């Protein structure tokens, strides 16, 4: 292989590039990125950046890692438009073509937008640095904020806005925040946490309409209520960014369909990060996308290894891990958690800043959720990796 092209200039793509060099690949590495920015870190966008605690410069990976030796050819600010797997060519939006011998697909995911936003100004999603900067700039003018969707992004935005002293409404069709993700007890705790901090919830209702003259002025809900607002942040999930691959021959199924080693169905093409759907041996071989930071890091490296070494590499397995900062709480969660799993608090309490809780299914430990308890979290994470029973977890962690 002389040229490896990485489509996607975020964490998974960067870690893939680093792994290629680390493994001694000395050919060309071309990195294509839809955004105009060099690779940067996304988790702080909804947290430190929005709360005004960090400047944007602090997010760039080259500011905290040494990338000089990577010798990347970067094509930034240009999305890939299409892929020709027979000629092994990627075509960019500008029409420029880039040939490859090996390809890493790392195009991530794109936020879902409300169908009825209707081109109004003041309606944002939060995925990219430019998204975050434009939200931050809108917030700096003392805006009334409406967050649509009470998932993690929405709740982090709400917390950051409350830190800034802004009025925040959160609108969610389910009857509690995080309900489908983490189940009833945690959902109630999340509701209480945000309500105590002054968030105005509209739960169990859908958005009927966004109204305004050019700029959004209010949201009309299904029950007829109106939420006045200057800024709307929509956090209703993401879809894998695979539009450029449609019809290319790369198998797609709610993501790029990969095998256990992150290879696609096309020779010399692997994938990494949020865009990947693969059978995850760490959770019983379930086909899944894992849209979290650590997964992007590990998949980037594993995909690079698969590309260079071929099918002799070990299957890629990953226990999902994510964290979320809201007010004075750091939540950490690992495992494959479902809303109807058994749920037990083993330390602290859900109404307290510190707690450690476990999720179980068929008497096996299947997930861990802690707040401000990093030491307990790490011990519980080891138990999860060992396939511990709920009883073993109770004894070790209570």
């Amino acid at each position, binding site marked *: 292989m002389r040229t490896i092209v990485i489509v996607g200039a975020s964490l998974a793509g960067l*870690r893939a590039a680093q792994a290629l060099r680390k493994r001694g690949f000395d050919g060309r590495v071309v990195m294509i990125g839809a955004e105009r920015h060099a690779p940067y870190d996304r988790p702080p966008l909804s947290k430190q950046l929005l709360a005004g605690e960090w400047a944007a410069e602090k997010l760039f*990976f080259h500011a905290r*890692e040494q990338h000089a030796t990577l010798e990347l050819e970067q094509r930034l600010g240009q999305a890939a438009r299409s892929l020709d797997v027979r000629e092994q060519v990627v075509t960019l939006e500008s029409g420029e073509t880039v040939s490859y011998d090996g390809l890493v697909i790392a195009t991530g995911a794109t936020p879902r937008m409300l169908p009825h936003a209707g081109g109004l100004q003041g309606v944002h999603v939060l995925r990219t640095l430019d998204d975050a900067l434009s939200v931050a700039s809108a917030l700096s003018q003392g805006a009334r904020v409406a967050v649509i969707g009470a998932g993690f992004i929405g709740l982090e935005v709400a917390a950051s806005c409350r830190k800034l002293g802004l009025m925040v409404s959160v609108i969610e069709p389910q009857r509690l925040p995080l309900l489908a993700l983490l189940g009833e007890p945690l959902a109630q705790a999340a509701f209480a946490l945000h309500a105590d901090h002054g968030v105005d919830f509209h739960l169990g209702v859908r958005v009927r309409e966004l109204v305004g003259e050019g700029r959004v002025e209010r949201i009309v809900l299904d029950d007829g209520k109106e939420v006045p607002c200057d800024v709307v942040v929509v956090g209703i999930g993401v879809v894998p960014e695979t539009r450029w691959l449609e019809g290319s021959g790369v198998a797609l199924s709610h993501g790029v369909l990969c095998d256990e080693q992150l290879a696609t169905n096309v020779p010399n093409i692997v994938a990494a990060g949020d865009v990947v759907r693969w059978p995850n041996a760490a959770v019983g071989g379930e086909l899944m996308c894992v849209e979290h930071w*650590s997964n992007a*890091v590990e998949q980037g490296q594993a995909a690079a290894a698969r590309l260079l070494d071929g099918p002799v590499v070990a299957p890629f397995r990953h226990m999902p891990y994510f*964290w979320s900062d809201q007010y004075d709480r750091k939540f950490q969660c690992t495992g494959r958690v479902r809303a109807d799993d058994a749920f037990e608090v083993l330390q602290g309490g859900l109404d307290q800043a510190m707690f450690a809780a476990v999720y179980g299914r068929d008497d096996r430990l299947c997930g861990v959720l802690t707040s401000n308890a*990093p*030491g307990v979290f*790490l011990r519980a994470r080891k138990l999860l990796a060992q396939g511990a029973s709920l009883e073993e977890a109770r004894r070790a962690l209570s």
Partner: protein
Amino acid sequence: MRIIVDFDLCQSHGLCTEAAPELFELRDDGFLYVLNETPGPEFAAKAEKAVLECPTGAITIKAE
């Protein structure tokens, strides 16, 4: 090599303790401790793994 942790950035995710248990430890007080700030070259691969997997970019390695 020298391991440097920026404790203003460290948020005790503890992933480094899994990547390099000989070098890092997260204690019950919730804080990270560097067990060996000047490890030998045999720990280079593990230390680099810890750097890449740290969610807050708190770890750097300096060649000595």
